[in-house]
């Protein structure tokens, strides 16, 4: 039996999807700003952080309200737990995008351009794709896609390790300043963390659909 307050759960799902889309967009823009060396895009990313934080808080309040007033059980409880965890993951994606944009700006200001070594092209596109797929598997309740996201995250981790090794070796050649290399390591780590948050979301979708612990 559909109850009048079940609409509030649909509204919660919609808000979570919106937050997912916003964080995906800001991550994509941050990565593009890095790949394209686009300072305007960097500023746009920095400006979007508050909107993402506000939406996460809104979702938290809606979850607390639903738990307090609607006595949810079973899948409804799981959806609320997933909303709380996933909204935090999305908020963290926003923070990582913010870090990428800020570091990219520092490097661009100092170096004038980004060398090919620092563009992390493959890893960036992969992390962005993972986040997109993780949101899609939540929207479409697609268990197979969720499991695929978890597997693909290993590739992002491997690329991060590869970048770390490359940047360490670069120290021998001295073509990049220490500050730039250090910031580049942090950028790579932030991209890797975006992949981790996508993986978390995929695990949360599996919990939502199957009820298994995660």
């Amino acid at each position, binding site marked *: 039996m559909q*109850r*009048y307050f079940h*609409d*509030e759960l649909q509204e919660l799902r*919609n808000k979570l999807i919106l937050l997912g889309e916003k964080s995906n967009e800001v991550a994509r823009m941050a990565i593009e700003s890095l790949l394209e060396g686009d300072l305007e895009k960097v500023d746009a990313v920095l400006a979007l952080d508050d909107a993402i934080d506000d939406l996460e808080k809104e979702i938290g309040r809606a979850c607390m*309200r639903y738990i*307090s007033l609607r006595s949810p059980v079973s899948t409804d409880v799981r959806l609320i737990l997933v909303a709380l965890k996933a909204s935090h993951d999305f908020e963290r994606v926003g923070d990582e995008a913010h870090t990428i944009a800020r570091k990219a700006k520092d490097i661009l200001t100092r170096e004038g351009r980004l060398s090919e070594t620092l563009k992390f092209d493959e890893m960036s596109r992969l992390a962005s794709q993972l986040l997109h797929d993780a949101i899609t598997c939540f929207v479409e309740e697609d268990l197979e896609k969720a499991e695929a996201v978890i597997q693909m995250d290993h590739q992002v981790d491997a690329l991060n390790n590869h970048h770390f090794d490359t940047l360490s070796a670069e120290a021998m050649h001295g073509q990049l300043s220490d500050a730039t290399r250090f910031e580049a390591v942090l950028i790579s780590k932030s991209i890797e963390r975006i992949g981790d948050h996508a993986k978390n979301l995929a695990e949360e979708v599996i919990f939502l659909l199957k009820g298994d612990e995660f």
Partner: protein
Amino acid sequence: MNEVTPPISPTPEKPIIEIRNFNFAYGSTQALFDISMDIGEKEVTALIGPSGCGKSTFLRCFNRMNDLIDNTRIPSGEIKISGVDIYNRDVDVIELRKHVGMVFQKSNPFPKSIYDNIAYGLRIQGIKRKSQLDSVVEECLRGAALWDEVKDRLSESALGMSGGQQQRLCIARALAVKPEIILMDEPCSALDPVATAKVEELIHGLKKDYTIVIVTHNMQQAARLSDRTAFFYLGKLIEYGPTEQIFMNPENPKTEAYVSGRFG
């Protein structure tokens, strides 16, 4: 886009019942102490509290049902409905109860047909024309979400209906005389979860046209159903506010203890 409940104002914007410093006693035993609150028009207001806290007594004050009990008295205070002091000696109590209908804990259909249960109040008012009665019976049964279930057996006895249907019939019967306010005293306490859900859905739907005041022991029901909640303890109003506030962040520690089940 789904319909989602908008946030509610801290106090009722359009009060239909105004209670000021209201005291009530059964003989020498005072049951209600200095109650002041406003009940908003076309809102659902829940009265909660442990047994004996005075919530049902308070509810029955709104249509002067307590007048039927010997030795009751109102030491001081007033209740105004739509601006009229209902304890003024000029008030016609029968007329008052037309405006303030009531649904009780146990469904109490008349031992008559489903149709006659609804038409009863109208016939007492002198309405005899069948087409008019037919129209009101259908309207009220639809209003109580019962029409589709009973439209083919209107002449059958109401006593043959299930408990949940009987309770919705009593709500339909209350609607027939077009009250502005409906009082409900534990309307779901004798019903199973499915029948309870149907009555709750009905109450939620009725609030666009009626003001509803409901007494309930079921805190989840108060939380699910009401716009505002009043918590009573030992005859005193401890806290009254938007239901969201009472259940998510009550101001009074007694309210917190009661709604979280830590009471006593």
